[in-house]
């Protein structure tokens, strides 16, 4: 079977490796890193919060919204979608291979999805089938988007642009150019900053706000579907307004506060993800320019966990709010 071979082969050559070979590779890369840093010492890149544009001329102009630029986080969004599609195709191929137990990567994806499905079912009960797609989609997309910052080349390969507060440029091994430390000649046009081709998707506020809007809006839709008009009594609590004059008014005020809390969910969702991941990239930049050799590895490990936890938290909070909306109180 064809699918059999592609899934089983990557496992086999690893077993032939003697234990302890990998440590010499680590040592080799550390020594290589020392020499590389002597030749081209890393710099602190220019940091900005809005996504960088590839060119200053707009791609197209929409009637109401205005100019539309192709930004580097938009490229990252396309890449994230492609990666998710590839994952889906790999898992589909493994499912069609007819095996009872999936192996390798497809097995890992299955175990992950099964875990979060069980979590959904234990929280949301019989609404789990409706809520699970949002949970899984948001978690997988944010996970891939967050882990992109760990790939070398993201945030560091791109177009050089003349700038007054940049770094001088030097030829790199004959086929490319790199920014190097130093003040430059000081006049305009001799120093450059980098516009990366790909920037981590979660460092763009548009992405996080978009996800938060989808999450909060679909929470209302699922609440309305599950409980009908009764769901609105959470916001406009008119039941006790006439039967118990004083506490009814208080209940009505509390209901209005629920609207504020729904709006603040959008803020908290979007800024939590943006803050964590943007701070992570800035941390990696600063550590990489302060201690160029090896120290960044530990922070990459930290960012690995931060990316995982933030993705799961975003999805899990969405799931819990949706489950809450389906319950009466």
């Amino acid at each position, binding site marked *: 079977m064809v699918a059999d071979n592609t899934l089983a082969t990557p496992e086999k050559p690893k077993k032939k490796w003697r234990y302890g070979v990998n440590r010499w590779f680590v040592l080799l890369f550390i020594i290589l890193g020392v020499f590389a840093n002597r030749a081209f010492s890393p710099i602190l890149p220019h940091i900005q919060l809005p996504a960088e544009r590839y060119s200053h001329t707009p791609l197209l102009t929409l009637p109401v919204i205005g100019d539309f630029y192709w930004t580097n986080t938009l490229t990252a969004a396309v890449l994230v979608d492609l990666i998710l599609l590839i994952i889906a195709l790999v898992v589909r191929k493994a499912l069609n291979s007819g095996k009872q137990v999936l192996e390798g990567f497809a097995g890992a994806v299955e175990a992950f999805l099964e875990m979060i499905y069980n979590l959904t079912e234990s929280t949301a009960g019989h609404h789990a089938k409706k809520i699970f797609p949002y949970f899984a989609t948001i978690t997988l997309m944010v996970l891939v988007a967050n882990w992109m910052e760990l790939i070398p080349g993201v945030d560091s390969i791109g177009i050089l642009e003349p700038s007054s507060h940049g770094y001088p440029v030097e030829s790199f091994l004959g086929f490319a150019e790199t920014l190097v430390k130093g003040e430059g000649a000081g006049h305009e046009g001799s120093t450059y900053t980098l516009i990366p081709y790909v920037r981590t998707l979660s460092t763009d506020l548009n992405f996080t706000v978009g996800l938060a809007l989808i999450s909060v809006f679909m929470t209302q839709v699922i609440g309305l579907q599950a409980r009908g008009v009764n769901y609105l009594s959470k916001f406009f609590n008119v039941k006790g307004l006439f039967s118990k004059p004083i506490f009814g008014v208080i209940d009505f005020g509390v209901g209005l506060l629920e609207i504020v809390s729904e709006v603040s969910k959008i803020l*908290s969702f979007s*800024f939590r993800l943006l803050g964590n991941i943007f701070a992570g990239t800035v941390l990696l930049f600063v550590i990489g320019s302060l201690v160029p050799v090896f120290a960044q590895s530990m922070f990459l490990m930290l960012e690995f966990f931060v990316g995982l936890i933030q993705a799961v938290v975003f999805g899990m*909070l969405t799931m819990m709010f949706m489950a809450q909306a389906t319950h009466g109180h």
Partner: protein
Amino acid sequence: MDKEAARLIGAGIAMIGAIGGGLGIGVLVSGAVQGIARNPEASGDIQTNMILGIAFAEAVAIYCLVVALLILFVI
């Protein structure tokens, strides 16, 4: 005072709010660890809720961080 210096001091002051998030996470994890020590079988549920609570407590500190980053890199 220099405008640049005021900006840097402001970013530093904005991060004072991270004290709250730190205290909150400390209290949360201490409670969760005590709960797990008393009832190790419930560790799965406790861990899930603990991570959710940490995410909420951390969000406050992250707001401070976002304000500091805005002061540093946007304004």
